[in-house]
């Protein structure tokens, strides 16, 4: 039953993802991609849990390495997305760097 429930969650999330993403304009596709990429770093949560309580050293090493890689993904992904998005300016707003 648990598996069926998770499959339902999966199906609904995919539909929701399609609905949300198809409205994003082409201008924002790169930040969308790096933003989505940062979200896929959610696997860090799995990495914290999967290895258990550290009773098996090999599992602990795997879990720790997974945490490290996922942390690169999460931290880097969100920061670079933020950096990109702050560059998008509307016309006639004050622009950093100024114009002579």
């Amino acid at each position, binding site marked *: 039953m648990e598996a069926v429930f998770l499959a339902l*969650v999966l199906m609904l999330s995919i539909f929701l993802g399609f609905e949300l993403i198809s409205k*994003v304009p082409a201008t924002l596709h*790169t*930040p969308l991609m790096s933003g*989505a990429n940062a979200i896929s770093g959610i696997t860090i949560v799995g990495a914290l849990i999967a290895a258990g309580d550290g009773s098996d050293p090999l599992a602990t090493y795997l879990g720790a390495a997974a945490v490290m890689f996922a942390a690169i993904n999460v931290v880097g992904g969100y920061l670079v997305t*933020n950096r990109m998005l702050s560059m998008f300016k509307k*016309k006639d707003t004050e622009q950093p760097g100024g114009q002579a």
Partner: protein
Amino acid sequence: MSIELINLWYVAAAALFIFGLKQLGSPATAVRGNTLSSLGMFIAIAVTLFNKNILPWEWIIGATLIGGIVGAVVAQKVEMTSMPEMVALFNGSGGVASLMVGWAALYNIDNSTFTNITILLSIIIGGMTFSGSILAWGKLSEVMTSAAVVFGAQRIVNALILIGMVACAVLFCMEPAVNSPYLYAVIGLALLFGVMAVLPIGGADMPVVISLLNSYSGLAACAAGFAINNNILIVAGSMVGAAGIILTNIMCKAMNRSLANVLFSGFGAAKQATKVEGEVKPITADDAFLILEAAQSVSFVPGYGMAVAQAQHVVRELGELLEKNGAEVTYAIHPVAGRMPGHMNVLLAEANVPYDQLVEMEDINPRIDNVDVAVVIGANDVVNPAARNDENSPIYGMPIINVDQARTVFVLKRSMASGFSGVDNPLFFGDNTRMLFGDAKQSIASVVAEFKG
């Protein structure tokens, strides 16, 4: 904190991801959207730390610090022109993390067969994402050739790898053990398959690959979620998977090709375009300035060449001068211009071009005959009229920006060689086309100097 309470917090995190993605739909709200999404991530990680069955603290702190610092430094340092490479690397690190999550989950003793299957899925998808992303990075950063690598028996080899992978996976599920040789075989074959999948894809098709790998990194997280029975991984992973698939689809449509065609055939291998012959009409920066000064409406059409020449800042400068001169200035961007979806938009945004001046192909084409001067900077295929006229052209049927229908076209080009895909471009011989030879940045800079002088 009990498992139920943790799961309740996961629901809140999922809601924040959803709101975050929704707000990414408009440039005005996108920064807030990204912040919401990162808040969701923070909550998800923070409540997980209350789970009793997690890694020892010293490992968590050490690994997070190292990963976090690496990610932060890279994110601050990276040039906007190298965004595709960096996204490829981030995808790869997400993929390898999911592989390891699956692997570590094998150390739980009483896994059901269903769980073992999902563990293998997360190992396979994660491994493919990792090696495919590394190869894509190599191609994008030109550490290796960016051209399609195609050999005769490729499909047979790929099919054999796939069959071998499935066979090993089945054998593993019949007798699961952490040190089963079949496990290592599955990991090895998954890595190999990722390499083989990206190998036959050429540089101009990279936007499709990057989108697809993005999707895989989400699906890998999703599979890992099934492996450890965790709903936030499933929700977030599948939304990312859906996002990647949509972008992949948009990219394929913009090239008028099916996904299968992009993935399994090297670009331009099949057909030879009709050779066009004609005389090109070169122009000097002086003459270009005179025409631009008289223009009422100017549209810049950037391509990957603009990124290579780092010409975006000087292009913006020219755009501003033209506006002061009374012209209407737009930047027309083809969906597959550059090496990842939206690549050109980010470069122009970095150069302070306001986003309301960035127009999409569908918006510029109906009014292109009212454009006095279309300035093509480092773009080739996306403005090649052969896509409309020449049935023999490998890009026949691909939607293009119809710059040849503008009153005058300037093509900025280093020299007279054909573009990336090796197809000849009849645009260069058009009656209304003027070629401005030389480095794009230099050429524009000398026009700017004329305006100022």
